[in-house]
């Protein structure tokens, strides 16, 4: 009965989503207040039914109702309750329901916190969100029903994929989807502005906090995913440039460009069409990611079980949503460049270069990810595009960003002096140079990548600190830092920390595969790893062989590590559980291989990973920056009491139309 109720709730949610889409859009077009008023109640009602459906599926998992096919495939009577809980989004059907749930929550938040916006504008925003929700509900009901029964019910379930039985899985998808789906808000605002013809800068100001929050969640989601891969896959890598990772990285790159271009458009009125386009792109790439992960067009380490029918449906949906919105863009986007003019050296130029590089990076990732399909389509021969390609291209494309980033805050809007900014940044350059030389002199033969990482991180970090100081000295108390500025400082510091982590760990980490008999020691640098043998261990739904390694440094024991090799009882899958000792400047990481030879010897993999934590620490700082910036009260000034400095609400008449280069103006 419970699963049938769940399915019924989904059907009701679909009906309400359709109402939420159709009626308010018509209402806004005709100026019909009654139809416009449908939007908010429909959002609330849809959310109630989606939450009900999600709760009922969760209940089926917790109560172990194996007559539900999805539960039977992804749970098991021995599975601990918290993994039964997170198992809800452990595979395709349930994760889709999570997607819909998060969209419903975002919709409710938009409906609740936007009472001061014009009614017809909000009707269009909620209508667009309703359309997206309806599409996904239809997708679920037609191709991926999580409530389908299997009769007769099996006595027990197959079990959740062991790799997913991890705290990382509890957090990773919800955070990632909150980010993905959150871009739908900026998207809906952009489409609403296009449909309503209100192409002034107000929609940008209203959508900025939503974009920042979505971007911050996406940053967190990707960071958790990376951290999870680092310690569960047992390979010690933190990013594999796998198609599924790229699917989440492309919206992030475009989202990063978007939050920067929104700043320009909101403050100066420039790049309006480009900002609209980026808002459409960011969400389109989220949808594309959903397609790539669930359609089976690419091989990946962790793709969902696939079915061509699903691929066809998402592709059709993608065609309607993205094609439709780009058509609306083509018809309604402002034809003339608006906003204030600016000089060659100005913050506008700096942010334009930022946008160029991030957009190109996203395009590069898209090209590399889809190249195998392109190769098949054009008979170019089958190739594998992997980490060496992506890493090389990405570093190349991000080089200008790293070099120019510290200049950004020092450059004024409209017109700036490069020499003045450079003089202010001189201490950062000197500091970075000196520290890098010192590191080279002290540590000896460091790889160039590690030195470059140190230099780049200090250049960015010191540059931002210098800006914070200049602001402290230059502005009156109370007006020194706006939350927006603090967010920028925090996120850019995060970039510095991230760059240091990436380049140092990539160039100086040590990896050894060794055969160890009990009592044997392996020396790595100043560290000594002692293997104390393997014994049996047991978990709730697995049996394991657990090794013990003691790590000594300078004669002192600094860690005892217990890596496991688990055999899951129900489906006899084997999973290695690496053991690690995290540290701010160094992670120690060991994984157990196979027994080799009869003398109790085992193959053991040992990693020493300097500064690897800085990668996620940097990402967390970026996330924090996104949240801080979103909290700026300025974004919630709805009445046109104070126009943003210099931004005119009418299309600027000072410039001639520019048919040639309009697309990015």
């Amino acid at each position, binding site marked *: 009965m419970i699963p049938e109720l769940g399915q019924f709730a989904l059907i009701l949610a679909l009906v309400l989503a359709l109402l939420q889409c159709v009626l308010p859009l018509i209402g806004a077009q005709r100026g019909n207040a009654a139809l416009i008023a449908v939007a908010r109640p429909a959002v609330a009602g849809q959310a109630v039914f989606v939450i009900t459906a999600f709760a009922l599926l969760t209940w089926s998992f917790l109560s172990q109702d194996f007559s539900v096919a999805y539960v039977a495939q992804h749970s098991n009577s021995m599975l601990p309750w918290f993994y039964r809980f997170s198992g809800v989004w452990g595979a395709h059907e349930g994760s889709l329901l999570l997607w819909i749930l998060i969209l419903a929550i975002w919709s409710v938040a938009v409906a609740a916190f936007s009472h001061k916006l014009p009614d017809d504008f909000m009707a269009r925003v909620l209508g667009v969100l309703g359309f997206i929700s309806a599409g996904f509900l239809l997708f679920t009901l037609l191709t991926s029903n999580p409530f389908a029964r299997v009769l007769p019910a099996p006595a027990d379930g197959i079990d959740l994929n062991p790799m997913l039985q991890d705290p990382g899985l509890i957090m990773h998808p919800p955070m990632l989807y909150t980010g993905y789906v959150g871009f739908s808000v900026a998207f809906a605002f952009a489409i609403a502005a296009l449909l309503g013809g209100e192409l002034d800068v107000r929609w940008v100001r209203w959508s900025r906090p939503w974009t920042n929050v979505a971007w911050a969640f996406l940053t967190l989601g990707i960071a958790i995913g990376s951290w999870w891969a680092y310690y569960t896959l*047992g390979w010690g890598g933190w990013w594999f440039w796998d198609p599924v990772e790229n699917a989440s990285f492309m919206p992030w790159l475009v989202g990063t460009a978007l939050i920067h271009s929104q700043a320009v458009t909101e403050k100066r009125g420039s790049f309006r069409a480009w900002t609209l386009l980026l808002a459409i792109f960011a969400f389109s790439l989220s949808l594309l990611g959903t397609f790539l992960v669930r359609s089976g067009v690419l091989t990946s380490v962790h793709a969902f079980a696939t079915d061509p029918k699903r691929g066809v449906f998402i592709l059709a949906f993608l065609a309607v949503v993205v094609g439709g919105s780009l058509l609306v863009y083509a018809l309604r986007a402002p034809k003339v460049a608006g906003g204030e*003019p600016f000089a060659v050296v100005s913050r506008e130029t700096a942010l334009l270069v930022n946008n160029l590089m991030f957009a190109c990076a996203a395009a590069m990732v898209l090209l*590399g990810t889809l190249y195998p399909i392109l190769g098949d389509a054009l008979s170019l021969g*089958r190739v594998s595009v*992997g980490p060496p390609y992506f890493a090389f291209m990405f570093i190349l494309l991000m080089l200008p960003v790293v070099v120019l980033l510290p200049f950004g805050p020092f450059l004024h809007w409209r017109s700036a002096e490069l020499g003045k900014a450079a003089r202010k940044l001189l201490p950062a350059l000197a500091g970075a140079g000196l520290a890098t030389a010192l590191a080279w002199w002290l540590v000896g033969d460091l790889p160039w990548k590690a030195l470059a990482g140190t230099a780049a991180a200090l250049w960015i970090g010191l540059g931002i600190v210098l800006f914070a100081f200049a602001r402290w000295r230059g502005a009156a108390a109370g007006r020194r830092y706006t939350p927006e500025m603090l967010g920028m400082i925090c996120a850019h510091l995060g970039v510095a920390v991230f760059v240091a982590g990436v380049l140092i760990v990539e160039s100086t980490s040590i990896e050894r595969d060794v055969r160890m008999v009990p009592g044997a020691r392996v020396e790595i640098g100043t560290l000594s790893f002692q293997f104390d043998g393997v014994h049996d261990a047991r978990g709730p739904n697995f049996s394991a062989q657990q090794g013990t390694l003691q790590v000594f440094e300078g004669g002192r024991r600094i860690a005892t590590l217990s890596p496991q090799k688990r055999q899951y009882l129900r489906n006899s899958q084997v999973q290695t559980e690496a053991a690690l000792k995290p540290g701010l400047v160094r992670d120690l990481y060991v994984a157990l291989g196979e027994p080799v030879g009869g003398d109790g010897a085992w193959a053991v993999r040992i990693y020493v990973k300097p500064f690897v934590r800085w990668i996620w620490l940097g990402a967390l700082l970026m996330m924090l920056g996104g949240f801080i910036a979103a909290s700026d009260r300025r974004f919630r000034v709805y009445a046109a009491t104070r126009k943003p400095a210099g931004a005119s609400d009418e299309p600027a008449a000072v410039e001639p139309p520019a048919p040639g280069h309009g697309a990015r103006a």
Partner: protein
Amino acid sequence: MTRAPWRWLAAFVIACLVVTRVPAAVDPLPFKDHAEEVRFQNLAKQLRCLVCQNENLQDSSAPLAADLRREVFKQMQAGKSDAQIKSWLTERYSDFVLYDPPLRTGTWLLWFGPLLIVLVGALVVAATIRKRSLAHRNSAPPATPEDDW
């Protein structure tokens, strides 16, 4: 092979999962020093495991990957260069085995595509900046001092 490879594919995937999906291919090989080990690791990470999903040779635990690692190691001992080892592999398994696709007609777009995108983008950006800066030179300076933020 055109009519429903699904059944076979499913069996293949299951075989992959059950037989070879032992994560973390820990494979101690008798390297003569650490430099050789690092060279081996770097090479193995540029090679794709041909059996299972998207994994490199270093991390894959498929039996074929283990065989290929041994073979790469043996050739390294025999004094072959990385390029020679790679071409030995591509003679048997095609360029598909390389994660770092070689530059040839079929990969021209892959390697120069991003450059092309950057160039086109940079032209548009430069044109925009030029246009706006000309307007800036012709416009009067703002009457009120502007706040930066």
